[in-house]
Structures are given as C-alpha cells and as structure tokens.
C-alpha cells in the first residue's frame, strides 16, 4: 500500500513536472520568437530611411501586437513642452474600436500616476483596471472608456527625459505580461526612440537644406542681378573706330566675373576685365567693391590731373591694389584682372595683366591670334607689388578679345575643356565678321560643346574690332633679317634709321641709344635662343617692324622657333663681375615695356615699347 501510494505520488509529480516542462518550453519558444521579431525589427531600423518612418512604426505596432496577442498598440509622444501626451500612431486588431478622440491627446498632468512612473523610466503594467491605485481615477476612466482589461505602458526615454511611451491594450481578455516580454518590449521602445531621433535629425537637416537651397537661389538671383546691372552691362563706348560687344552668361553659381568700359578721351577707352576668386554673393560683392574702387581711383586721378586726363593703366591698378590688397588678404580672396587701355590714335594697347586670362590679339594682316600675357600677380596675393604695364601695337582690322576662364574651362560631358585653342580658331575663322556675330558664334560654340553640362563658371567676354582708325604712324617700317649674329649691326642701323626718319624728332640722341641697346638685346636673344638650330641647319630669319607716332615707338620682333622665357629682370651685381644677366635688365630699363607672346602655332613675338605720353 505504501508502495502504491508512493507510485501514485511519483506519477502525479511526473505529470506536474512534465506540464511544467511543456509550459517552460512553450515560454522559451514564445520568448525566442519574440526575440527574433525584435531582432528583425532592429535590423529593419538599421537599414531604414527616415522617409519611411510612419510606415515602419505602423508595421511595427502591427507585428508586435499580433505576435503578443493584444488588441491595440500605440505610440504617444510628449508634446507642448512636455505638457501633453499625443498619440502619433495606433494599430488595432480587427473589430477593435479606435481610441476615443478625447484620449488621443491629453494633458500629462491628468494622468499623473502614469506620468510619475514613466518619467522615472519604469514601465507601467496594469493587469486589470482594479489594479489602478486609488487617486489615479483618470487612468482608470481611460481604461474603462477604451474597454481595456489589461494595459502595458513602456517609456521612451531621450537624454534622460520622457519623450513618449509605447502602449499595449488587451481588450477582449485579460493579459499578464511576463518580465521577459516586457524586457523585449522595452528594447523595441528604445529602437523606436532611436528611429525618432534619426527621423527628427534628418527632418531638421532637410529643412536646413531646403532653406539653404532657397537662400542660394536668392543669392544666385541677387548675384546675377548685381552682375547684370553693376558688374557687366553693355559696354558704353561710342567710338567710330571701334566695334565693341560683350557677352555675359552667369553660371549656375555666379562667380564674380566683371568688366567695365570707360571712355578716357576721344581716342582712348579703358577695359577692365576681372574675375574674383569665390562664387555667389560674396564673389559678386567683392567684384562690385573692386569695380567701385577702380571707379573711385579713376575719378580721384582724373580730378587731380591737368585737363582731367587719366594716367596709364599701371598707375590706376597700382593705386587700387594699394587700397584693396590688405583687405583681400584679410578676406582670403584675390582677383585676377586685366586693365587695358585702347588708344586708337596711337594704335596702342596698354595693359596690366594681374594673373588673368591672356588678351587675344588677332592681327588682321596675318589672320593669326597672339596671346598677350603679363607678369603681375592677382590683386590680393602680394602687398607692395608694383604691377607693370605692357604695350603692343595694333593695326587696321585687328581684333582684341578679352575673356574669362569660364570660356576656356567650360567642360563637356566627358570632362574635356573647351580650351583656348577652340576660341582662337573661332576668332581666326570669323575675323572679318562683326563683333556681335563673333560673340554669338563663341556663345553657341561653348554651349554646344558643353552638351547640356551646366556651366561651372560665368562666360564673360568683350570683343573689340579696330577699324577706320584715326591718326597713324609717322614712321612705319619692316624688314626681315637672317637669323645670325652678323644681323645685329643691321638691326641697330634699321632702328636708328627709323628713329631718324621721324619727322617729329621726338626722340633724343640718348633715348635713341637706349632704344637701339634694347632692340639689339631682343634680336640677340632671338638669334641665340629662338631661331638657332640644334641640327646644324641654316637658322630661320626674323621679322622686325618698327612704328613711331606721336604717342610712342614700337619695335615688334616676329619669328618662328623655340620659345624662351624672359625672366623678371633684376639688377645684376656688377661688383661680383658677373659676366651674364645684363640683356633683359637693359631691355627692361631702357624700354617702357617688353611683351613676349606666342600664337600657339610656333609663332613668337617680342614687342618693345617706348611711350612718349607717360
């Protein structure tokens, strides 16, 4: 009997243990599945873009609600400076009523029990409305209004403060959540919190970007307006000897290109063409300020000069540079520019090139373009730099073309540059057309080349055709010399004869000697470095044209051969008895300007100028 009783007891205990084991297995399985779901949700969050925020929250509430077998799942957010709980998302099982309108947003103070618990970062588990403590009547009423049997609220904490809560209602039956489930649901709440943070950050970023785009558009429009009205505009030169046209196409990001034309006298006008480093409104403002400085300097100079005649470009550029270079250095900006004076009576272009694109000079007699470059740094690079002026002659039918790097550096879809050579080819092919037509051809060529690629820089150019020129040359001679040293004496004689032939006899004997010294040095350099041959072949000759009028003397050497650089002249140290380095110094000192240019086809030019109108 004792044995049987013991057997019964063991059997009962076995059954109980088996049941407990099955229950434990079921619980483990549920917990595992819930954990898997939470992991899945977490993975979805990681790869989520905040644009899908609402959809993800809704699907999350649905998945969790279905899985844990509850009837309603929702998300409340703290709003109004933490004074209200507002429902942002809700999922309901089939047949379950939506939360009443009055319960979708309520003052947090009305449910102070919930609030206290949630603020202290604790979940609130209410298995039954009877478990609501006395004093929490609103909470109990809410449960009853929603027909809620059981409720679980899990706080969302951001930076230690309550940001909202995740809620689960059991409506059709009571539900008791175990700690493992609650732990996992707290993890879900944290994921939602992180998603909210990301969503809000991205929303703020998008708002900021939208505002930035709007500001940029306003900036662009303002910059473009400044450029159209202040920085560029129509060239206002009315001179029967010139056909002058300009083109400006602002890029997507206006970048401070500017130009200005000013009449100096009946025979001369100035062209200022510049490019400020920096785009948009700052670039446009600096360009406007620089342009204004030029106008002020010119006005001051004209007022202080007898008969109001403006001094030469180098005086103007140096005066402006001394004003604005410290400011530009402070602003970490700089300006590349060319300041040019076209004197149609003297047939002379004077220019100061401060790191700008070359001036393209089409010589009508050869229909070839020469690239005229200077040696100065952009304004804003160096304080106390003396910017030098260069002078070259032009003739009837010649074209001067000033342009910004927006033309040469325009790119097509493949990233190729439009380049200077294409521009030169257009000018050479169309040299006999009106400037308005050349401008149109250049514009069309650049736009076609870009194949719809947006312009990275402004397209700016000024084209000047010189025709029906007044005045002329008192002396104009040209000669070809063999490319050998024995030609030097002939070159000296040629220059001397030209000077002696000047009926105005404006050049003194000392000045004549200086000009001959300089011309001799130029010829010597050409023979030594330019036309000399390494293969023993006969060297090519060189061409020298000399012109004298009341304004100046021009010596222009043209040759085909090797390029050679003209380094900046420095006073040679005579006391060290150095043997070399005097040639360029002599040219620089004895002439007012030296210009070295090439025509990109192997043609070279050295132009020396002596001005009488300084």
């Amino acid at each position, binding site marked *: 009997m004792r044995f049987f009783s013991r057997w019964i007891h063991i059997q009962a205990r076995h059954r109980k243990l088996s049941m407990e084991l099955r229950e434990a297995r079921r619980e483990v399985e549920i917990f595992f599945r819930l954990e898997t779901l939470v992991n899945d949700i977490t993975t979805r969050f990681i790869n989520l873009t905040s644009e899908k925020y609402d959809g993800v929250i809704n699907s999350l509430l649905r998945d969790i609600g279905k899985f844990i077998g509850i009837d309603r799942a929702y998300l409340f957010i703290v709003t109004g400076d933490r004074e209200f709980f507002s429902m942002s998302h809700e999922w309901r099982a089939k047949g379950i009523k939506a939360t009443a309108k009055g319960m979708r947003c309520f003052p947090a103070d009305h449910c102070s029990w919930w609030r206290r618990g949630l603020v202290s970062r604790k979940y609130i588990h209410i298995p039954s409305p009877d478990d609501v403590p006395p004093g929490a009547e609103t909470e109990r009423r809410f449960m009853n209004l929603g027909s809620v049997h059981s409720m679980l609220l899990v706080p969302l904490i951001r930076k230690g403060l309550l940001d909202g809560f995740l809620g689960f209602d059991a409506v059709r039956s009571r539900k008791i959540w175990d700690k493992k489930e609650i732990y996992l649901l707290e993890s879900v709440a944290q994921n939602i919190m992180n998603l909210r943070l990301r969503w809000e950050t991205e929303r703020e970023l998008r708002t900021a970007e939208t505002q930035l785009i709007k500001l940029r558009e306003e900036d662009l429009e303002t910059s473009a307006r400044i450029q159209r009205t202040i920085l560029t505009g129509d060239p206002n030169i009315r001179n029967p000897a010139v056909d002058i046209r300009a083109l400006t196409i602002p890029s997507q990001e206006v970048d401070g290109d500017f130009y200005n034309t000013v009449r100096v006298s009946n025979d001369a006008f100035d062209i200022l063409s510049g490019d400020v480093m920096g785009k948009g409104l700052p670039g446009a403002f600096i360009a406007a300020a620089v342009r204004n400085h030029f106008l002020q300097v010119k006005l001051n100079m004209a007022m202080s000069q007898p008969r109001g005649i403006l001094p030469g470009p180098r005086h103007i550029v140096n005066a402006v540079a001394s004003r604005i270079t410290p400011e530009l250095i402070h602003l970490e900006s700089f300006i590349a520019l060319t300041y040019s004076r076209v004197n149609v009576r003297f047939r002379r272009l004077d220019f100061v090139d401060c790191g700008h694109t070359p001036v393209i000079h089409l010589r009508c007699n050869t229909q070839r373009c020469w690239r005229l470059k200077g040696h100065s740094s952009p304004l804003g690079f160096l304080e106390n730099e003396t910017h030098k002026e260069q002078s070259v002659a032009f003739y009837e039918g010649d074209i001067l073309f000033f342009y910004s790097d927006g033309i040469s550096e325009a790119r097509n879809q493949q990233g190729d540059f439009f380049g200077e050579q294409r521009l030169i080819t257009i000018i050479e092919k169309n040299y006999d057309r009106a400037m308005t037509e050349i401008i149109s051809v250049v514009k069309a060529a650049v736009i076609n080349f870009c194949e719809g690629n947006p312009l990275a820089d402004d397209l700016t150019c000024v084209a000047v055709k010189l025709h029906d020129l007044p005045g002329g040359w008192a002396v104009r001679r040209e000669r070809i010399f063999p490319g050998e*040293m*024995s030609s*030097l*004496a002939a070159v*000296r004689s040629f220059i001397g004869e030209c000077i002696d032939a000047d009926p105005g006899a404006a050049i003194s*004997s*000392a000045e004549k*000697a*200086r000009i*001959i*010294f300089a011309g*001799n*040095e130029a010829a*010597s350099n050409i*023979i*030594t470095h330019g036309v000399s041959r390494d293969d023993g072949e006969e060297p090519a000759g060189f061409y020298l044209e000399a012109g004298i009028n009341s304004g100046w003397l021009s010596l222009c050497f043209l040759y085909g051969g090797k390029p050679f650089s003209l380094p900046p002249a420095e006073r*040679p140290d*005579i*006391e060290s*008895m*150095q*043997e*070399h380095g*005097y*040639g360029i*110094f*002599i040219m620089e*000192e*004895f002439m007012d300007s030296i210009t070295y240019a090439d025509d990109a086809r192997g043609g070279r030019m050295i132009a020396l100028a002596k001005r009488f109108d300084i």
Partner: protein
Amino acid sequence: MINVSFEGNILTISFEVDHIDSGNYKEFKSVMQRYIMDGARFIFNIEALKFIDSSGLGAFLSILRDLHKVNGDMVMYGAGEAIRILFDLVHLSRVIRTFPDGEEARRALV
C-alpha cells in the same frame, strides 16, 4: 680686331672694330687671353667703339676678373655717349675706372 701697344707691363688696347656684341665678344675674349699675365695692366682705348652690348660688357668684366687673379688691373677711356649710357646703367664705374682721355687713364695705372 684690336691693336696692342706695350709700355712695360702696361698694355694699351685700341679697337679696329666699332662694336663688341654677341657676334664678336668670344673672339675678343679669346684674343685678350694672350695678354693676361702676372701684374698686367690694361688701358682700353674705346674711342673707336660705337656700341657694346650685354655680351661685350660681360667680356670686359670677364677680362677684369682674370686680371685680378694675376694681380693685374685695367682702366678705360674714350667712351662715347651711347656707351656711357650703358656704363651708367650698370654702374660699371664701381669696378672699372673710366677716364675721358688716355693721359688720365695712364696716370691712374702708374
């Protein structure tokens, strides 16, 4: 190219050409090398020269440098207006004494 007359260790050099430039400066330097010896003193009569370019100038400076190496010296006289303009530009007088006539030049060397 040149004529040379001797008076002790003083050589007076005059020119048969009217220029020293890139075309003939090497020949000039080469010819002058023959006369550079210990304690040599040169008087250059450049009255005949109408033109000297940067290469010619360099040749004179090269000769002076070689003379200094052998405790020699040199002076010049008779520079025309054009050449004086060049000499003034490069401050040649800081290294080569120049005189209006031969007598003064000779006195400076003796």
